[in-house]
C-alpha cells in the first residue's frame, strides 16, 4: 500500500474509480454472456433480480463518480434529489389526508431544500438540530391548521418519520463529504464510498448467512429471515471489510474495524425496521408490481444508508472530537 499512499489524493480516487468501473464492466460482461444461454423459468426470475441489482450498482457508482468529478456542492445536490425521490416513495405508501397537504408541501419544498443548503454551508450544528427540533415542532402546527382531527397523531408522526429517515438520515451522507477531518482534506468521497461499501457488504453477508444458517427468525411477523446470528455475521463482515479498507479512511485499523461494525450493523437494522414499515403499509417491496403505484424501489435500496449514515457521521465526529 506504500506506493498507493504516495500518489496524490485525486490520483488515488481516480484509481479507485478505475478499479470500480473495471470490476463492474467485468461483472456485466460475464452476466451478459450468460444470458445468451437458455435456462429455466426460475432461473430467469433470479436473473431479472440480479439484472436490476446490477443496474442499481451501476447507477450508484455513476452517481459517486459524478459527485466526485463535480465537487461537494453538486454531490450534495444529487443526494438531495435522492432524498426527494425516497420521500416521494415513502409518502405515497403512507396514509395521508387532505388536511396534510400543506405539511407535505412544507416537507418537500421547504424542509428538504433547506436541510441540504445547511449541509452545503457546512453549518453542522444547525444541520443536526434543524429537523429534530424545529421541523419536529413546525409540522404538527401546520397540520393542525389543516383543521382535521381525525387520526391526527398518526398522520403527523408518519410525516415526521418520513422526513427523519429520507431527509435527515440521507443528508448525513453528503455531510461526510464536507466534513473537515484532520489530515483528510478533499477525501470525503472516500469516506462515503467506504460507508456505502461496508453497508452493502453487511446486507449481502447477512442475506447469505440467513440462507445458509436457517435460524429461527427473531420476529417472524415482521421478517421471516432476520435472525440475530445472521445480523451478527453481517456486522462482522462489515467490520472486516472496514478494517481491510482502513487505508482509505482517516481511521487506524482497529477503529476502522469498529466503525465498520457500527455502520454495517445499523444499516441492516434499518433494513429490518423498513420491513416492519412495509408490512404495516401492506406491501412487500416499495417498488415492483405489488405496490399501488409502481415506485422504482429506491427506498428499498437507500434505507440502510439512511439509517447508517447518521450513526456513522456522529461516531466520526465524536471520534475526532469535532
Amino acid at each position, binding site marked *: 500500500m506504500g506506493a498507493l499512499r504516495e500518489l496524490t489524493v485525486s490520483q488515488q480516487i481516480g484509481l479507485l474509480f478505475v478499479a470500480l468501473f473495471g470490476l463492474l464492466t467485468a461483472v456485466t460482461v460475464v452476466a451478459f454472456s450468460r444470458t445468451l444461454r437458455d435456462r429455466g423459468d426460475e432461473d430467469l426470475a433470479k436473473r431479472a433480480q440480479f439484472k436490476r441489482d446490477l443496474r442499481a450498482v451501476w447507477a450508484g457508482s455513476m452517481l459517486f463518480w459524478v459527485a466526485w468529478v463535480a465537487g461537494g456542492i453538486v454531490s450534495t445536490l444529487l443526494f438531495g434529489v435522492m432524498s426527494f425521490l425516497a420521500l416521494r416513495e415513502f409518502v405515497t405508501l403512507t396514509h395521508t389526508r387532505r388536511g396534510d397537504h400543506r405539511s*407535505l408541501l412544507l416537507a418537500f419544498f421547504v424542509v428538504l431544500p433547506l436541510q441540504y443548503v445547511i449541509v452545503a454551508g457546512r453549518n453542522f450544528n444547525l444541520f443536526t438540530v434543524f429537523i429534530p427540533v424545529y421541523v419536529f415542532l413546525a409540522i404538527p402546527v401546520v397540520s393542525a391548521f389543516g383543521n382535521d382531527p381525525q387520526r391526527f397523531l398518526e398522520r403527523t408522526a408518519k410525516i415526521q418519520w418520513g422526513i427523519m429517515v429520507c431527509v435527515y438520515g440521507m443528508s448525513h451522507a453528503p455531510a461526510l463529504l464536507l466534513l473537515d477531518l484532520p489530515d483528510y482534506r478533499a477525501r470525503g468521497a472516500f469516506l462515503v464510498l467506504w460507508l456505502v461499501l461496508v453497508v452493502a457488504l453487511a446486507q449481502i453477508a447477512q442475506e447469505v448467512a440467513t440462507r445458509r444458517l436457517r435460524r429461527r427468525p427473531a420476529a417472524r411477523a415482521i421478517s421471516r429471515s432476520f435472525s440475530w446470528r445472521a445480523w451478527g455475521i453481517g456486522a462482522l463482515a462489515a467490520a472486516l471489510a472496514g478494517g481491510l479498507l482502513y487505508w482509505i479512511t482517516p481511521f487506524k485499523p482497529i477503529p476502522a474495524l469498529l466503525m465498520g461494525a457500527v455502520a454495517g450493523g445499523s444499516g441492516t437494522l434499518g433494513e429490518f425496521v423498513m420491513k416492519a414499515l412495509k408490512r404495516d403499509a401492506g406491501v412487500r417491496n416499495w417498488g415492483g408490481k*405489488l405496490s399501488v403505484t409502481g415506485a422504482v424501489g429506491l427506498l428499498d435500496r437507500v434505507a440502510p444508508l439512511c439509517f447508517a449514515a447518521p450513526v456513522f457521521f456522529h461516531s466520526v465526529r465524536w471520534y475526532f472530537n469535532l
Partner: protein
Amino acid sequence: MTLPEAAGLLLAGIARLITGAQGHWLGSPPKAEQRIYFANHQSHFDWVLIWAALPGDLRAITRPIAARDYWTSSKLKHWITREVFNAVYVSRTRTKDAFGVGADDEDPLEPLMEALRNGDSLVIFPEGTRGHQAEPAPFKAGLYRLAEAFPEVQLIPTWIDNVQRVMPKGEVVPVPILCSVTFGAPLTLAPGEDKRVFLDRARAAVIALREVH
C-alpha cells in the same frame, strides 16, 4: 425544437418528477393506433398525467378535450391547450344565452367527431366532471355515441390512481406523490347493445383496473 415542443417536454418532465407518471399497459400495447382513452376524472392534473405516461410518438397524435370558455379565457391557457396539447375545444352548454345566440344548433360532440374523422386519438373523461368519491360517477352518453359512430376506433379503459392526493380540489401546488396510469384491454360496443348497459360496462372496465397492478 419549437417552443411548444419544449414546453411540452418541460410539462411532461415536471409531471414525471412529481408523480412518476408510470404507465402500465395491461391488455393493450402502446401502439400508434387510433384510440379513445376513457378515464376516471379526479383532478385538473389528470390529462397531463395520462399525457406524460404515453410514449413520445403517441403524444403527438393523442388530443385532450378542453372546455372552450375556460381554456380560451386567457392567452396562456389558450396557447397551452392549442399549441402544446393540440386540444379539441368543446362548448360546455347547448343552452342559448339571453339573446338566443350561442352554440345553439351545434352538437357538442361534433368537434370530437371531426377529430376522429381526421384520424386523431382522444382522451375523454366520461364522468363529465371531476369526482371526489372513491368510485367514478355514472358515465355520460357521449362515449356511447362516439363508439356507435366510430366502431373501428379502439376504446381503451384507463384508470388513474392516486392523483387526488397530489392536488386535492382547492389546492394550487401539487405534492409529490407517485401516481400510475393503467391502460386496459380494448372494449367494443356489441351490436344492438343498450346505451345504459354499455356505459355501465365501460365504467366497470375502468374500475376493474384499480384492482390489477
